């Protein structure tokens, strides 16, 4: 049972980490708590669903469609909401409240078009078949989710550290004014970050829809709550923190079910989270004095 629970914990952690990556990126660079990330995640899942069901595309192309649509949504999100608010130097909470409105509109629109009921991505094989080792079952999909979370994190970290664009982004996260004075295209970078964060959310939406076997308009909501917890635990805006926070929350949930009781699942997980934040209020990787991307 222990081996299986470990597999369960790591794949659930991968799910949370995957969701949290885009969420933390947008906070790190734009300094916005994007409460529409759950809705964009849902948009990714519905795009893939339409691609598979209506246009009969294979899953890889459906994933591509989800990336394009959510990337475009990210572009629009910055163009129509974040950029005007930036230009007017709106206070901190304004973009956050705006994203709540966007999330509600997106959820309602999707519900209006596709209905409130659960749908599923009719893809076979990958989610069902898998490996067996030491008495534990793991599906290919779970392996893929875990690997993808790790790879995406590594790519993001490498990109931030070793590319000119990454350097610019870090400078931007440090100080917007200084970055602008250095000749960095601040607006362009903001927009690009919004696009990347959104398409990461879209990828997460497709994979998690496959993993949980359910696509519905409100699917981003519970994930958003967990995602916020993960990101706060890891340190707001920190990419390694999103991954570690995800795996931590996954393990905390699974092992509280396994050894304490399923009624205590969230109580134990969030109690632990609270305890950690008491000791390290800045989160696992957060640094109170220094902002990071």
């Amino acid at each position, binding site marked *: *049972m222990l081996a*299986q*629970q470990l597999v*369960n*914990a790591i*794949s*659930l952690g991968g*799910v949370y980490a995957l969701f949290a990556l885009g969420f933390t990126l947008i906070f790190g660079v734009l300094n916005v708590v994007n409460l529409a990330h759950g809705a964009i995640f849902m948009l990714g899942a519905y795009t893939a669903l339409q691609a598979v069901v209506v246009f009969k595309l294979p899953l890889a192309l459906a994933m591509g469609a989800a990336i394009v649509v959510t990337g475009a949504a990210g572009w629009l999100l910055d163009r129509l909401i974040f950029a005007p608010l930036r230009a007017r130097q709106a206070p901190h909470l304004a973009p956050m409240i705006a994203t709540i409105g966007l999330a509600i509109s997106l959820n309602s629109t999707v*519900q209006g078009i596709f*209905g*409130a*009921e*659960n*749908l*599923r991505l*009719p893809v*076979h094989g990958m*989610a*069902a078949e*898998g490996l067996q080792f030491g008495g534990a*079952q793991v*599906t290919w999909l779970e392996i893929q989710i875990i690997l993808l979370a790790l790879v995406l994190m590594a790519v993001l970290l490498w990109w931030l550290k070793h590319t000119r664009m990454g350097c610019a982004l870090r400078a931007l996260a440090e100080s917007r004014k200084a970055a602008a004075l250095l000749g960095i295209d601040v607006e362009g970078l903001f927009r690009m970050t919004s696009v990347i964060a959104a398409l990461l959310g879209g990828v997460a939406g497709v994979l*998690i829809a496959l*993993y*949980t*076997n*359910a696509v*519905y308009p*409100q*699917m981003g*909501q*519970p*994930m958003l709550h967990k995602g916020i917890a993960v990101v706060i635990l890891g340190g707001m805006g920190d990419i390694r923190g999103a991954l570690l926070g995800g795996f931590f929350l996954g393990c905390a*949930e*699974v*092992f509280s*079910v*396994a050894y304490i009781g*399923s*009624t205590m*699942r*969230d109580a134990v997980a969030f109690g632990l989270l609270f305890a950690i934040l008491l000791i390290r209020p800045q989160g696992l990787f957060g640094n109170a004095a220094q902002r990071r991307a």
Partner: protein
Amino acid sequence: MQLPSVLLGAVVALGYFSSLAGAQIKIGVAEALTGNAAQYGVPIRKGFELALSEINGRGGINGQKIELLVEDEQGKKEEAINVFKKLIFQDKVLMLFGPTLSNSAQASDPVAQGAKVVVFGTSNTADGITSIGNYVFRNSVTEADILPVTLKVAAQKTGLKKVAVLYGNDDIFTKSGYDNFKKALETLKIPVTTTETFAKGDVDFKPQLTKIKASNADAIVMSALVAEGAPVMVQARQLGIALPFIGGNGMNSPKVFDLAKDNSDNLWVGSPWSSENPAAENMRFIAAYQKAHNAVPDQFAAQAYDAMYIVAQALKQVKLTGKLPADRTALRNALPAVQITGATGPFKFRQVNDKGGKPAGYDAVQTAIVMTTKGNQYVIQK
């Protein structure tokens, strides 16, 4: 612009008068048409509309046509109360159907009871709803009646000795389903290996299922709605758990074949209605529903359809005077005696007591049909 607006006015006026002349019995419908519970509320509405078009098509009730005033209560308590008040006090309906969820009924039915207006639930199965008062009716068979029958049949056919229990603990419907399962398991003296819970909106059930697998149960008793129940079944099969699932009313929906496609076998459910039931009334209902709505009906549509006929039957016995309070009470007094055979089979009411032991509202008396799933289909167990 003069002429068109005059024309428009005339058209509106015509529409107004024709609706005045045609529809004289106003019945309110408060169901969840948006939100998560819309998956139940929408078929319920379609069930009402089908029965209504048949009844009005045959000339209505004693020459009067029925008009439905449909409101969306969104599956929320607060909204249900608002909508109930609007229908009762503003629209002055004769009676009300709804709301969709037991959770909402608990909050909104007292409004109808207080105003002495019949409230008729077609999908509320939790305990205690009809204890609210003597104007509260329902034709949805309660889980307390169905679950013991389901368990008994499943135990006989599969020879199960001990079971694991899994239920949603933050929803009045799934929690009350669990309470009834627990009672039935105690009566049948079936030991429980482990009891696990989940919450609404959960998507990952593997930790609980891994524990259940290790507990060596012979079957999994599950009180869940399809939204969570179907993923539970898929994840169980992924973990290599081939045990039978014994579910409540929430799992009795053809959606399970879609959401848990190819992993939906060996689910046992009890229901007042089955698409496989070959009774003539049921076949007629299914055919008419498919023709009208171009979709396969479910249990919720069937119960709504029957409910409209139950009310129609009662209305035939009532002489409407046009005085609203008197008419509302007359309908209430006529309802308990109604007996019909509808899509859900032979039906009659049974009065229940409130918490103080005094006679209160009315529950349904119906026989449960136990079914299992095989090859993405329900099979009736005799």
